[in-house]
């Protein structure tokens, strides 16, 4: 470093990380489309609950069929699980992709990212703050669905406990535990997709591209997983563990498939954030 005769030596100071995180969350939760998205997601279990309540009332004499939908009837705590598992197919990945798209590509397009870069917020810290924001709001979305789902389920379908898909009956508190476990598993899967989306987001300044690529990944994975000749691909497909999340209503809990799902998601998270970091450190802002 060269000798300086400037008035006072410069010191490397950084804005406190919690302050940056608060600011990020506040901004995200003021964005109209985030709020609308959260509101619509919260309605999903309510609408599903009303639908099931009407359907079971009309067909109360008929014998129940197989599958999660029929198990829900009379078991309110299954409603949030059902809503979360169904939403993981498209709605929640869409939400994660949208949040990630706004986080970097959207901010670049608005010219707001360079305000942060010139403040300066270090580039690695910037990614950490963005990842925190996307992860927190994704968690908020699933938690919100669990809450509205549980309330709607108990009110509409009644809830003394939880009937598992293995045929056993869990007490109420254990049932709540299973709902929370569903929230964790679904959220981690959304984080995995959001990590990939954030990597794309670091690469482009068009938020639409992020959403298209992320949903494209989900759709292609889904298609590949149903082609029997390509079964050998299944272990690396992001959607493989999405189907097995409904295992949480089995008794006893199949820890093997749950751990596998978490590990697969963790791999995607590591890969996604590595790509995002390598890009954000070198990109021209």
């Amino acid at each position, binding site marked *: 470093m060269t000798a300086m005769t400037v008035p006072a030596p410069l010191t*490397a100071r950084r804005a406190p990380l919690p*302050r940056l995180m608060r600011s990020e969350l506040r901004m995200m939760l003021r964005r109209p489309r985030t709020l609308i998205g959260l509101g619509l997601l919260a309605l999903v279990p309510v609408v599903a609950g009303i639908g099931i309540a009407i359907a079971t009332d009309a067909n109360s004499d008929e014998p129940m069929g197989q599958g999660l939908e029929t198990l829900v009837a009379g078991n309110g705590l299954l409603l949030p699980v059902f809503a979360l598992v169904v939403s993981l197919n498209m709605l929640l990945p869409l939400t994660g992709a949208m949040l990630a798209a706004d986080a970097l590509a959207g901010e670049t397009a608005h010219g707001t*990212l360079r305000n942060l870069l010139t*403040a300066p917020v*270090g580039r690695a810290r910037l990614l950490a703050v963005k990842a925190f924001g996307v992860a927190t709001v994704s968690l908020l979305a699933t938690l919100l669905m669990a809450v509205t789902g549980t309330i709607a389920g108990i009110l509409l379908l009644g809830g003394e406990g939880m009937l598992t898909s293995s045929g056993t009956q869990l007490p109420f508190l254990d049932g709540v535990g299973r709902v929370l476990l569903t929230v964790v598993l679904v959220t981690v899967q959304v984080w995995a997709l959001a990590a990939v989306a954030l990597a794309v987001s670091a690469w482009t300044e068009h938020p639409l591209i992020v959403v298209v690529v992320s949903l494209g990944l989900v759709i292609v994975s889904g298609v590949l997983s149903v082609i029997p000749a390509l079964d050998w691909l299944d272990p690396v497909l992001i959607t493989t563990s999405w189907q097995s999340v409904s295992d949480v209503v089995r008794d006893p809990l199949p820890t093997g498939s749950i751990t596998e799902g978490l590990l697969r998601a963790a791999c995607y998270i590591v890969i996604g954030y590595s790509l995002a970091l390598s890009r954000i450190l070198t990109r*021209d802002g």
Partner: protein
Amino acid sequence: MSGVSEGTVAAPAAAVPPAARTRGLRKVYRGTVAVDSVDLEVPTGAVLGMLGPNGSGKTTTIRMLLGLVTPTAGEVELLGQKMPDGAALALPEVGALVEGPGFHPFLSGRENLMRVAAAEPLLASARIPGAVADALERVGLTRAAGRRYRGYSLGMKQRLGLASALLVPRRFVILDEPTNGLDPAGTREVRAVIADLHAAGTTVLVSSHLLAEVEATCTHVAVLNQGTVVAQGELAALLEAGSANLLVTTPEVTRAVEALRDHRIPARAVPDGLRVDLTATTAPQVVETLVHAGVPVHEVRRQRTGLEDLFARLTEDTNVIEDAALDDLATLIPEDAR
């Protein structure tokens, strides 16, 4: 046309290191050379106006100064720190408005500034609301602070961008086209802000294509054309070097010219007066000579090259074709039709 020429005009040797310095700066975007061999120096305490036609590399140079863009070749020093590696040291002391204001449309002006303030390393959390209010006051946005940015006029957006550069007292403020979209009153206010910063000892780099603005506010000038610096130095020195003439307004031109010739001062009659060559004499001598000779002198002023002339001369290469085309057009139009 002599004196200042293409190349650099040496600035007086400064005791303090420059606020910013680049050496051999070059940036290539996908095969297009945006900036090439830029050796820019922003002396500490100066107000440097960066002039250049559209696409001359002003913004790219500024982006490299701020570490937003990594140069293809060359070095950047900002407040003595090599960029972009020294960003954490230098940037907290630098306020910048680059490439127009960038804010969230769904947040109000105040909320947008709060967000920028949250990222400012030099701002303690407790001081943020006060700093935001002060910055809004300084750019005259206090009354519109609660409105959403989406509904702001171009001028208000520009003011908010300026406010974000002024959130913290800085050593160096970089303003890229700060008066874009501002009305004359707004332009005057920006001038006042720049003057305040200068008075407080802050170094200012302001890029513009408005020559009058630069002439009114800057102590130094750097002229860019086609990605390179074609001239830089003190504004007065650059303007002075181009001409050394005194314009004298007098009704008695013939007597004045004779009086001056008797003292071997070359002078030439022009409408309303005469133009005196100052290469061999000084302005007070000329006036003294004229007054002694009994010539009524109504007005004496130094003829300046004017930034406009200088700018046109330095950047004319690109405009030659256009001018030639215009001349062609002029000859095509019959005299009486014009």
